[in-house]
């Protein structure tokens, strides 16, 4: 039997970067094949060429033994290639059914389409109401739309781009069940991820990319997570160094019955949130995206100003009614999730971006005038200490890649030595080496006596980094417990809350 998909010498050049350099590998029918690599290793470029979004500069793609050219996604779907994107191509204002209809090349009457959708959902246990508006669905449910849409085309190869990054552990298990069933029926799966334990649990073969080149094709079940990670990074992996048995100091950040008002149509406010972070402690807040994390971060940073002065206190001083600038002066710095446009101004230079958040703490503004020398020096220090790949302090923030901008933003806040630091998704889109450096910097900041709150959807990150953990669901925060007292299952159940656990019972109306 010929290989389902075979790539030979695929090369793709972008201005200044060789995204793929002579990449060759093959996917067998019914195989779950992992494509592993850091951000910027060229995984996305490679699958975009398989799916016809981009064209390779050199090399050959063979499909079921025949050489093919895939000029566009439509042609890919016609061949039998389906793809579930990391960022879903969904239309929030439209219904599930309309979304799926848009993804179908053939014109199918909506009644017939609905029948086929229900059939696929039944077969694979993907529960979803076709008439719901996408805006009301959870991320896991949205992913199911994409999967159903791909499955309707009876694909022979399904490409999954980082499918689990936003799912609860239970949703991940459900997804794996579906994927295994598909593979058993002969559909090949190309599974892109950098989560090694998932690849070990799910995949038959793993192809590892680094810097656009193929490093190795191996059997993940024969490898350790560590050996694969080292192939991926190309060097030894550093562990977070935490001082053993360090004691925490006095309560530093105390949150007492914090609540926010509902701001937008799809916004989830926080309700009655209370927690305490002691000096030297890192508190992690886990949860599926869209459960009030944004409101919590805004309420802590001062973007949302509350009406209770004592709802947020630092060292016993109430700051609940202060704005962002006043809170920064009091020692509370924050990093929001959206880095470009929220944490940094894309068209400003890095030095100017430093002035925006560090001006008061580091005296960059004197009598209303910007001390650009101080700003440049400080920015240069951030660039050096956090290994930011930028030409210098006068590069614009928008010219940096996502991971580098994130390193700059984290560095900008950490080097201000805030007594309380609140960060959301500190290593989102950052490669493993840089993530380790950011984690280490956070740990070091905590060791120096700061209280840190990390809001993240990455459980591995939270478990490695944090001392205590709480879970946010629909705006409610669970009680915080030491990380080692939480099992993955327990976290997963809290993350899913009532919403996730009973979903299966009411999702398909008769």
């Amino acid at each position, binding site marked *: 039997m010929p290989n389902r998909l075979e790539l030979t010498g695929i090369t793709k050049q972008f201005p200044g970067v060789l995204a793929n350099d002579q990449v060759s590998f093959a996917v067998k029918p019914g195989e779950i094949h992992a494509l592993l690599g850091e951000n910027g290793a060229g995984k996305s470029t490679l699958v975009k060429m398989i799916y016809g979004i981009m064209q390779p500069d050199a090399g050959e793609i063979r499909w079921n033994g025949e050489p093919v050219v895939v000029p566009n996604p439509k042609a890919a779907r016609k061949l039998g290639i389906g793809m579930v994107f990391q960022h879903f*191509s969904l239309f*929030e*204002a439209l219904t599930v059914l309309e979304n799926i209809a848009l993804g179908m*090349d053939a014109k199918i009457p909506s009644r017939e389409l609905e029948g086929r959708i229900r059939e696929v959902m039944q077969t694979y246990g993907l529960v979803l109401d076709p008439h719901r508006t996408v805006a009301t669905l959870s991320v896991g449910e949205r992913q199911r739309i994409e999967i159903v849409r791909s499955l309707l085309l009876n694909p022979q190869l399904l490409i999954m781009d980082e499918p689990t990054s936003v799912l609860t552990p239970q949703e991940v298990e459900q997804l794996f069940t579906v994927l295994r069933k598909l593979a058993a029926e002969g559909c090949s799966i190309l599974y892109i991820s950098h989560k090694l334990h998932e690849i070990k649990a799910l995949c038959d073969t793993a192809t590892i990319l680094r810097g656009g080149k193929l490093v190795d094709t191996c059997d993940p079940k024969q490898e350790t997570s560590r050996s694969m990670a080292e192939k991926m990074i190309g060097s030894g992996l550093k562990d977070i160094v935490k001082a053993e048995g360090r004691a925490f100091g006095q309560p530093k950040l105390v949150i007492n019955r914090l609540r926010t008002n509902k701001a937008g149509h799809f916004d989830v406010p926080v309700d009655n949130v209370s927690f305490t972070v002691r000096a030297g402690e890192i508190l992690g807040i886990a949860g599926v995206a869209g459960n009030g994390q944004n409101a919590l971060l805004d309420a802590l940073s001062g973007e949302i100003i509350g009406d209770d002065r004592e709802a947020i206190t630092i060292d016993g001083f109430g700051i609940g009614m202060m704005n962002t600038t006043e809170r920064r002066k009091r020692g509370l710095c924050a990093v929001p999730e959206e880095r470009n446009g929220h944490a940094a101004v894309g068209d400003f230079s890095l030095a100017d971006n430093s002035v925006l958040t560090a001006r008061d703490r580091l005296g960059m503004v004197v009598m209303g005038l910007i001390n650009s020398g101080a700003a440049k020096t400080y920015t240069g220090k951030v660039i050096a200490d956090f290994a930011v790949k930028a030409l210098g302090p006068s590069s614009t923030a928008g010219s940096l890649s996502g991971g580098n901008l994130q390193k700059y933003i984290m560095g900008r806040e950490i080097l201000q030595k805030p007594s309380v630091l609140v960060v959301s998704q500190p290593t989102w889109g950052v490669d493993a080496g840089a993530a380790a450096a950011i984690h280490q910097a956070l740990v070091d900041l905590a060791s120096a006596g700061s209280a840190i709150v990390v809001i993240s959807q990455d459980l591995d990150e939270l478990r490695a980094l944090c001392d205590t953990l709480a879970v946010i669901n629909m705006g409610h925060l669970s009680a915080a417990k030491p990380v080692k007292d939480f099992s993955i299952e327990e976290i997963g159940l809290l993350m899913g809350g009532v919403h996730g656990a009973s979903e299966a019972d009411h999702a398909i109306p008769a």
Partner: protein
Amino acid sequence: MELALAILITVVGASTPILIAALGELVVEKAGVLNLGVEGMMLIGAIAGFVVQFHTGNPYLALLCGAAAGTAASLIFGFLTLSLSANQTATGLALTIFGTGFSALAGSSYSARPVTLMQPLFPAEFYGNPIGRVIFGYSFPVYFSFVMVVAIWYFLHKTRAGLILRAVGENDQSAHSIGYSVIGVRYLAVMFGGAMAGIAGACFPLLLTPQWAERMTAGRGWIAVALVVFASWKPFRLLGGAYLFGLVMTTELYAKAGGGPLSAVPSELWAALPYIATVVVLVLISLRRDASTNAPACLGKPFLPAN
């Protein structure tokens, strides 16, 4: 009775061009494009329609040429905003200024020359009595506007092409990644909007004032743009809105002519009423939190493919 009938017929005449132009703009905005050049395209359609009517006396040909002229004007806008990704607001305003100047120039030798008004669509036997007059007494554009309300609603919500158009306005990047031509769909929508604005413009010399006058659309294009928001991008609400504005504008005429207490109000105030109403309506709508939820999410944003 006679007065009520006359008012009703005037309302229909005043509302029709607004409705037609607004329907075109609704489709354009549903595709995610904000074309503020409606007023300019209407004026270009008006002069084209007038010239053709003046020389040929064939109103259907005049409407067709109005549509063609409107489409041509919209293509300028389309090329700048879609192919060159220019700012839509600025380009739309420029189109209005251009349309005003161009129509004034092209019409300079036609001022105060009369044309014949468009005749009712149905033969005279149909509207001998008042009821027949109300139902059958109008010329073609009136019936066309009603048909288009239903047709556009049906197109947007019941056809696949309409779904694609809404998808493009809702999330251009996703539509692009699925494989639809965002720019192509938007060009078609912009051209449709141009044609409708052109027809709406041609209605002015054909239905309302049978001669050429500079700026004869008198800001109705702006009212059409505001109506689309007022109607929350829903065709049937647009119908209601257009007639509401038509009624307000007509009241002005009869208040001035009719005497009595209404004429005591300064005529400038009456003339300003539709525009004041526009502002009030927009403010009221903005106060409603969820009003914008039906707005196309990509409205006014230029599309640049991510890859």
